[in-house]
């Protein structure tokens, strides 16, 4: 029994899983070798002590009592939980949709003084607590500084003093403050009526964006909106301060902050109150008539608004006017709340309810992913900010790569700032540390508010310039430039515009390219591009979602390959089981070949320019015999071999066939010359047509083809080609299927330059099963949820393009909603891809560690040869730079610069890296990447080597040890 077998048997023996024969062999080995017998005894002792040790641990918790002993079955529990869950989910959705998240204002006066109690609520009255709104309970006390929101319906709050009441209308927000000299209501929006029959001890003040209303012993109403405030007095009088002057308003009078506005009718202003009759009775008789002339108090000349008050209106009507002049890429959402509402209206929530998805979400991976979203990407806070955006949003990247975002947040500046600052001060600002204050200064330099707009940018200077443009209402001139004008002309009033100034970006890039890259640049025809645009309502012939590539003059290179739209027929060869196909109409195959050959790097091309032209001209007849349409399809069933079909259209079938036969004969001769007659052509007849197969002995797949009228059909074997012939002749291909035809645009029918069809959801589970999962380890497979449910969300769709001289337009038509499909799959794919990326990074370090160990081992082996002994330390290798000039650094070392290490090991030495856990285990136990790339242990290379062993392989356990090769799972 060798050492490895001994350890394997021993492990199983201790685990109690070793069979009788193995046990006999183990004990026999121990009997014959006293050292092994001693070792076995040590292991057995350890085993017994471990049992005893954990028994003591168990005893620690034996006394523990049932923490839920008092819980008893409640029949309604599950239903109640479900109801609560749905209610919470609904609340969350509604709150997200209407941008309801508001945060406590900073710098509010402190204290827990009770200012009011909720006396009545017809609808939802909410209070902000710890950054979240929660429903207020009836009679609940409202303390100083609390923000209150009446989302719908109506609420009334009892104030200090008998009979004192504050009525609050729907869609109102306010904060109550207790100052030493006054009680204050800070109104953020909405309407209130204050009934103050009892003289309160302190003046009662209502503060709006435009006025300050002070009252004692009166009944008055205040309305506040971004552009004006209105005050009505029903009884007594109030003092109003606005714009630096003060006035007194008597019962029956109305005050409005703008002299060009008309106050709402009196009846409207009292209608929502629960005491409309008493209010009307209090008002003077003439004031109840709607025809009464409203008493206007002339507002004083406008003065600059106080710093904290939001401005009445956006400084610039269109936020695009504030974008930097050198904007090269921008996104515009003219009406963000509507887009947000549309997204929330999609059925993505149904996916979250899928059992498989829920199971994944509750798994370790799901929990990790959720934690990443929550704690690292701060999705919760991000969504809160998104919920506070109330109008247009534009974002831009400048020529220098700087970024700026402007969003109309309709006076939610304080709430957004509170969220952002909450990220810096999760525990509040009371005991802020210098690092947090630095972060706050950074934030303040990059986040600013101008009127109702938020400006966020990567550079303080850019943020300041943008704010200046907004404040001074000075357009930067960006919208007068050619780029912006082209986009505005082409995008119309699309709800989403993404635009890239390709001409400017590519011109700069093109000038700096090396020759090979320049060849690709020319081949792709990038120099002719002008702009790229995505706008769902872009002008054009399409339906659904639209994008456009614009060209400066005429298209060139690959950009010129696509022909103008023409009827496509190749999909008549594909069965209704096709789940993907792509077809393109090429303008001129001979020109395409020129482009390709002329742009292959010269050093890789045996032919000179003249020869290329000659070659293309010599094969002109063949190249021109292409009809132009080329199509490729993936069909069901999904097989281990590629179930791929290709159809090529021919303009001149006879000429094409002559050259094609010559080409095949040449290939056959070449292969047989090299591999001794392994290749041959076999033919079969099917319905009077000849199917030819190119058979190579030992190859898993054969290529078969047949000429059918003016098309060449290729497939992975004669049976597949025969199927295509049957489909074509029966007329029951996908080209005749309503599933495809219903997706075609009505006006252009089957005319396209490019057409891509997908019904991936139908086949995705099978594709994953047959093509992907089979290559993964059991552990990796278990990380991927059962995706069978995707089929229920099947949404076939097409993408297609129309090419013209100066533009190519792209369209998507996915009635099931491509955005929905993407939204559904993105988290799964992202998680899976991220996992692979992590593996890639970890693998890179693992491979690097192995390579460095190999380099070190080579030097150690030379040392051994020269000195006749193993080095006692790695320092010996550096002596006079004889063996090494530096010890390789350990890529896993926690302390930067620490080197790989050496330990004596048996008759040789062990060279090792500390491995991903960063712990020096003195080469005592090895890192096994198959236990998880971040698992513990050292990466060890032992010298002298055993045959076949390398770094990462223990000398004793090479069978089970990992290699770089078997780690490359995907």
């Amino acid at each position: 029994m060798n050492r490895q077998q001994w350890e394997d048997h021993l492990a199983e023996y201790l685990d109690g899983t070793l069979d009788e024969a193995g046990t006999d062999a183990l004990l026999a080995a121990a009997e014959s070798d006293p050292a092994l017998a001693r070792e076995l005894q040590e292991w057995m002792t350890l085993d017994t002590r471990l049992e005893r040790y954990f028994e003591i641990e168990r005893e620690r918790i034996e006394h523990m009592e049932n923490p839920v002993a008092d819980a008893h079955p409640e029949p309604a529990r599950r239903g109640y939980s479900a109801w609560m869950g749905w209610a919470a989910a609904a609340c969350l959705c509604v709150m997200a949709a209407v941008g309801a998240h508001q945060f406590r204002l900073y710098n509010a006066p402190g204290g827990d003084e009770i200012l009011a109690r909720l006396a009545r609520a017809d609808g939802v009255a909410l209070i902000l607590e710890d950054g979240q709104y929660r429903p207020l309970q009836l009679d609940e006390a409202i303390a100083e500084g609390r923000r209150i929101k009446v989302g719908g319906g109506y609420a009334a709050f009892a104030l200090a003093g008998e009979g004192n009441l504050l009525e609050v209308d729907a869609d109102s927000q306010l904060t109550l403050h207790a100052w030493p000299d006054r009680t204050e209501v800070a109104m953020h929006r909405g309407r209130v009526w204050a009934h103050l029959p009892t003289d309160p001890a302190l003046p009662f003040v209502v503060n709006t964006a435009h006025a300050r209303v002070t009252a004692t012993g009166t009944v008055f109403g205040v309305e506040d909106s971004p552009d004006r405030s209105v005050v009505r007095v029903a009884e007594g009088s109030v003092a109003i301060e606005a714009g630096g002057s003060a006035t007194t308003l008597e019962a029956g009078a109305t005050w409005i902050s703008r002299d060009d506005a008309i106050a709402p009718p009196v009846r409207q202003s009292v209608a929502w109150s629960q005491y409309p009759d008493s209010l009307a009775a209090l008002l003077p008789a003439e004031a109840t008539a709607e025809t009464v002339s409203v008493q206007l108090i002339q507002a004083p000349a406008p003065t600059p608004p106080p710093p904290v008050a939001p401005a009445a209106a956006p400084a610039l009507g269109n936020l695009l006017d504030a974008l930097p002049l050198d904007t090269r890429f921008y996104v515009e959402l003219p009406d963000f709340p509507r887009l947000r509402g549309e997204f929330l209206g999609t059925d993505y929530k149904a996916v979250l309810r899928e059992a498989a998805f829920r199971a994944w979400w509750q798994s370790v991976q799901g929990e990790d992913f959720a934690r990443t979203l929550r704690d690292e990407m701060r999705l919760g806070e991000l969504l809160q900010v998104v919920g506070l955006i109330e109008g247009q949003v534009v974002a831009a990247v400048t020529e220098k790569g700087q970024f700026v975002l402007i969003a109309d947040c309709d006076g939610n500046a304080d709430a957004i700032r509170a969220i952002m600052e909450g990220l810096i001060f999760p525990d509040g600002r009371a005991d802020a540390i210098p690092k947090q204050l630095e972060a706050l200064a950074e934030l303040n330099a990059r986040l600013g508010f101008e009127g109702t707009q938020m400006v966020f940018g990567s550079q303080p200077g850019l943020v300041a310039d943008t704010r200046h443009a907004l404040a001074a209402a000075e357009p930067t001139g960006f919208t007068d430039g050619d780029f912006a004008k082209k986009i505005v002309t082409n995008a119309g009033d699309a709800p989403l515009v993404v635009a890239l100034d390709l001409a400017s970006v590519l011109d700069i890039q093109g000038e700096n390219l090396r020759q090979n890259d320049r060849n690709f640049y020319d081949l792709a025809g990038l120099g002719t591009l002008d702009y790229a645009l995505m706008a769902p309502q872009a002008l054009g012939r399409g339906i659904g979602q639209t994008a456009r590539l614009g060209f400066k003059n005429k298209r060139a290179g690959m950009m010129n390959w696509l022909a103008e739209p023409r009827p496509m027929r190749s999909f008549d060869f594909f069965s209704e089981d096709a789940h993907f196909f792509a077809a393109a109409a090429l303008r001129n195959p001979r020109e395409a070949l020129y482009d390709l050959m002329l742009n292959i790097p010269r050093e890789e091309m045996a032919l000179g320019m003249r020869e290329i032209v000659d070659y293309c001209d010599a094969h002109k007849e063949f190249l021109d015999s292409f009809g132009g349409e080329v199509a490729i399809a993936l069909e069901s069933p999904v097989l281990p071999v590629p179930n791929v079909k290709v159809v090529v259209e021919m303009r001149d079938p006879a000429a094409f066939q002559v050259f094609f036969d010559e080409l095949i004969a040449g290939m056959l001769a070449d292969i047989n010359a090299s591999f001794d007659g392994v290749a041959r052509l076999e033919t079969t007849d099917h319905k009077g047509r000849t199917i030819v197969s190119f058979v190579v002995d030992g190859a898993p797949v054969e290529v078969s083809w047949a000429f059918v009228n003016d098309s060449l059909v290729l497939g992975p074997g004669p049976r597949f080609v025969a199927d295509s012939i049957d489909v074509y002749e029966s007329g029951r291909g996908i080209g005749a299927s309503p599933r495809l035809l219903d997706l075609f645009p009505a006006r252009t029918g089957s005319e396209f330059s490019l057409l891509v069809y997908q019904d991936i959801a139908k086949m995705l589970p099978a594709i994953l099963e047959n093509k992907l999962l089979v290559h993964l380890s059991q552990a990796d497979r278990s990380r991927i949820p059962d995706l069978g449910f995707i089929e229920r969300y099947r949404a076939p769709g097409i993408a297609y393009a129309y090419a013209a001289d100066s533009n190519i337009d792209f369209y998507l038509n996915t009635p099931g909603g491509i955005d929905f499909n993407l939204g559904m799959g993105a988290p799964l794919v992202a998680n899976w891809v991220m996992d692979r990326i992590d593996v890639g990074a970890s693998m890179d370090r693992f491979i690097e560690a192995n390579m460095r160990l190999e380099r070190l081992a080579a030097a150690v082996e030379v040392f051994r040869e020269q000195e006749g002994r193993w080095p006692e330390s790695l320092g010996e290798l550096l002596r006079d730079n004889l063996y090494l000039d530096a010890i390789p650094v350990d890529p896993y070392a926690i302390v930067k610069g620490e080197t790989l290490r050496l330990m004596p090991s048996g008759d040789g030495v062990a060279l090792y890296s500390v491995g991903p856990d960063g712990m020096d285990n003195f080469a005592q136990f090895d890192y096994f990447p198959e236990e998880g790339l971040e698992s513990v242990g050292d990466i060890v290379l032992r010298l002298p080597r055993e045959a076949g062993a390398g770094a990462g392989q223990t000398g004793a356990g090479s069978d089970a040890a990992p290699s770089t090769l078997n780690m490359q799972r995907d």
Partner: protein
Amino acid sequence: MSREQQSLYDRACAGDGDAYWQLVLPHRGLIYAVAFGLVRSHERAEDLLHDVLVHAFRTLPNLREVDRLPSWLYTVARNRILDALRRESRTRRVMAASAHEPRVIPMGERLEKEAWLTTMETAMEGLPEPFRLILAMKYMNHYKIDQIAEMLDITPAAAKSRLFHARKLLRDQTQTLASGRAGAERNAKP
């Protein structure tokens, strides 16, 4: 899954605390081991065990197959405890400090203990968390290799290998500690 277990599960989901207790009783050690591995303090581990058990009771209906109870409990415990530690680290009680703080065993307690147990405790506290956990799963809870592999989301072969390496490291550390003690005792003799 036995009928009895399913019945306990159904009753526990309906809010029966006694049924829940019977269901989770065999797995308390697992939660305790996870907690101790992360906080290295028996007192804190007991508090966290209590917290996890209450939390798991509330969320038990999320477990769809009672067969997967140990695995589910492991996930819930780990996430719950990590969340608790994260919350603490936010309030500047640095998690690392408690995780790696060596435990000082009072002299009286030390004298009462057998020498091997003191050695074992010290060695166990120095053991990396994955190794300690797998030993606890094996010796405290007596889970089978397959169950351990499922809980840790590794293959059974990897679980076996990790268990063997855990024992090996523990044996080396106990031997080192024992020889150190023997040396110290020799030096202490006049």
